[in-house]
């Protein structure tokens, strides 16, 4: 069912390509469950371009973090393929003036959810994967041992199961028909709410156990399209020296506080931090809580309106109850 969408994507990109520098999209990866980013510069590369529920990566980070993407002919736009969640990162980056709307050409793709290969692997240890495809509500994988079928609900990424914005909020062209959101944003914080129901001690215990696994490899930070400090991140600098290199749980806590509070009112819940974490720490959950707070206190949802100002970069003199 995604062959058509891929074909349509390729055709749409081909039509726009002469006006564009590069188009950032996805291509097949090292096995059929994985995709990897691709940079299409000429029509000859178009056949590499793919769209499927394995296109998990949020590519918008490349627009601000990849020097090769940034240093191109400014007279031409950069094309980028985005899912609903990814598009919100673009909006946040536009709000903060890291990219200009008229510098990008957005290929928006309504998305029914992406597959979390870790969940697949946990359900059925697979070896030598030969093919993988999504049919209706099932994932069918063939490996060395034959065919395996999984219910899609069991293998979708956590963020997709609570997705309130499956359709790109900005786009120049839309590939495919808009999708009905699974939940309204107000109802998308079920996991946060389950955490909130726990006792303070249990929550502390949970995070101590989870965050103690942190290696401070900074993969979460590097994967985040809005963690724009990169190698100047204060988790690593001596000037100022917020953190030492000591391996302690408090250091790990503080690092995740830095990461989370720097994203307060900015995070679009694309889930890249959690996907990138080699220790499978649910780090996006921390940001979900912060988003729930800004939604409840300031009625603000990040990455929706390019003209809006993130709530912690502004104030309202009249607001009470704060």
């Amino acid at each position, binding site marked *: 069912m995604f062959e058509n969408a891929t074909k349509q994507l390729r055709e749409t990109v081909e039509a726009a390509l002469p006006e564009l520098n590069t188009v950032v999209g996805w291509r097949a990866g090292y096995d059929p469950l994985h995709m990897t980013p691709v940079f299409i510069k000429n029509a000859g590369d178009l056949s590499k371009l793919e769209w499927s529920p394995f296109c998990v990566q949020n590519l918008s980070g490349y627009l601000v973090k990849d020097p090769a993407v940034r240093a191109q002919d400014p007279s031409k736009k950069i094309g980028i393929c985005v899912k609903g969640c990814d598009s919100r990162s673009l909006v946040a980056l536009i709000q903060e003036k890291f990219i200009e709307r008229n510098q990008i050409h957005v290929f928006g793709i309504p998305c029914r959810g992406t597959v979390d290969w870790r969940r697949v692997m946990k359900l059925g240890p697979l070896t030598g994967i030969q093919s993988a495809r999504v049919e209706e509500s099932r994932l069918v994988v063939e490996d060395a041992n034959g065919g395996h079928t999984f219910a899609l609900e069991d293998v979708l990424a956590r963020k997709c199961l609570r997705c309130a914005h499956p359709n790109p909020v900005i786009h120049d062209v839309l590939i495919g028909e808009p999708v009905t959101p699974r939940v309204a944003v107000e109802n998308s914080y079920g996991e946060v709410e389950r955490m909130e129901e726990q006792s303070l001690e249990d929550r502390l215990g949970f995070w101590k156990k989870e965050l103690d696994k942190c290696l401070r490899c900074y993969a979460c930070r590097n994967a985040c399209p809005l963690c724009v400090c990169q190698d*100047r991140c204060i988790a690593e600098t001596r000037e100022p020296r917020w953190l030492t290199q000591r391996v302690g749980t408090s250091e790990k806590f503080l690092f995740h506080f830095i990461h989370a509070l720097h994203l307060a009112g900015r995070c679009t819940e694309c889930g890249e931090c959690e996907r990138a974490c080699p220790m499978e720490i649910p780090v996006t959950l921390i940001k979900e809580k912060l988003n729930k707070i800004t939604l409840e206190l300031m009625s603000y949802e990040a990455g929706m309106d390019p003209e809006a100002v993130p709530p912690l970069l502004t104030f309202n003199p009249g607001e009470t109850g704060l």
Partner: protein
Amino acid sequence: MRIGVFVCQCGTNIAGTVDTQEVARRAGNLPDVAYATSYMYTCSEPGQQEIQRAIREKNLQGVVVAACSPRMHEPTFRRAVERAGLNRFMFEMANIREHVSWINNDREANTRKAAELVEMAVAKLRFNQPLFSSQISVNKRVMVIGGGVAGIQAALDCSDGGLDVVLVERKSSIGGKMAQLDKTFPTVDCSSCILGPKMVDVVQKDNITLHAASEVESISGYVGNFTVEVRKKATYVDWTACTGCGACIEKCPSRKVPDVFNENLANARAINIPFPQAIPKKATINRDYCLHFTKGKCGTCQKVCPTGAVNYEMQDEIVTEQVGAIIVATGYDLFDASVYGEYGGGRYADVISGIQYERILSASGPFGGHIKRPSDGKEPKDIVFIACVGSRDASVGRPYCSGVCCMYIAKQAILTRDHLPDTRVWVFYMDIRAPGKNYDEFVRRAQEEYGVQYIRGRVGKVYPKGDRMVVQGNDTLLGVQVEVEADLVVLATGIEASAGARELAEKLRISYDQYGFYMESHPKLRPVETNTAGVYLAGVCQGPKDIPSSVAMGSAAAAKVQALFSRDTIETNPQVALVNERVCISCGKCIQVCPFGAIQWKELRGGIRKAEVLPSVCQGCGLCNATCPPKAIQLQHATDNQILAEVNALCA
């Protein structure tokens, strides 16, 4: 770094509840501390010499003084270490008096707390850097906001000192409340005779620019270089052409306009000059009553004006003034007596306010100086004054004393008996507040020479009886109920902050108290300064006061401006934000949040932009520092490393 720690005993102020020797002993064990001692009075001359001696002998590179609040003596000690050759920012204070010894008597806990505060100060000092001021030029023009007697005095004094002055007045004439007064206490001088010449001086001085009928729209900049936008309100009369002849007023058919200058005791015309001595003496059209604006059919004033000055198309105009200092003299308003329903102010024609009575007494007032009551124009035979209406009463949100009412009552009582010797006068009062020079004598004259009957007690109720008013009250000295029948009741309404005072304070970035009066920098020692450099206060906008105090304050503010302007440049505060360009990620969030517009883009080669702080505009709030994600922008002397050092000293 070699650090010296000096623990002050402050006599027994600190040593009484803190073991200062022990604090010094513990300080001696801290990293980098080369010398630690305790001293009786560190701020005294010998105390400061002791610090300077230690700096030289022990080769100190930084000094910590544990003593009183840095708000008290930080400047003192900074100068002291500077005289011994250290940069004044290589100094920290630990506040072990206001924050320790004075708030608890537990010697052991106090000693531990003081030692920890010293440890924090030392930890911070280890990250201190020498900082240096730069010089910025001073624009030697001053703006005075408010043209009452305080503002006039300030403007004239500045003008006499050779400064260019811009005077901004909200109303169409300067003069303020004093222009409405008949006489002044305790000399019973004619108010307009002493104020009038000063008002004339204002227009005759070449170096005073007067913007009447104008308000401050916005203020930007900083000490030495403010930019003020002034909104000149449309008066519908071209003041450069108007000669103040009054022909338009005479012919204006709209005759039922409340005469604000006469406190609504008379009617004015829709085109008007508020009073004969007005400065500038120019006509203004009141849009709300002018038939041209309300009905669209009159044009009389335009026809009769001999100079063609009337212009119905006039619009508000914004003028921009550049000044180096601002004196705020925005005065006050009077309490609305109708809040006390039981007194009948605003309900009964013959219950009036003190300022209305002032207009009645005035020869230029609504009755030509003849004392008549507003209801039927009869001469009153019995008059009652009620003191403290909107003063010293927490129940109406005015717990403070207005300071002038006791005196103006005495004055008005004396004048009443002068004008109408047969009239009987009563005063209901709480206490007599008459602390000025010749003030108490004046009140005594009212009582003894003029036979005014003072009754100590509050009035419960005022109600009409026939064509007279009955005043029911207490005589607390005799312990009896008193009832006085009167033809006229005068409510001595108190002083409150001027309408719009808070909004102006926010434009000026100065503080105000819960009543809207502006906060001086220090209640005793810096009474005319504000906490915003280059902004000074004069008159009642700072708090209730009488004319001589307002005039003195106007002169004092002018003197402060003269002192500021006596140099061509002023030193900037080096405690400003600084960008480390290598760390700046060009996100612009600092520029976005800076309340002062002190950060801008700096273009580097290759189209790269980095944030850049304008040190003369930066006020040192540190909002940018808290906002910057990679902490590329650091507020000098309150850097992340410095604050973290203090946190780590406590929590590591």
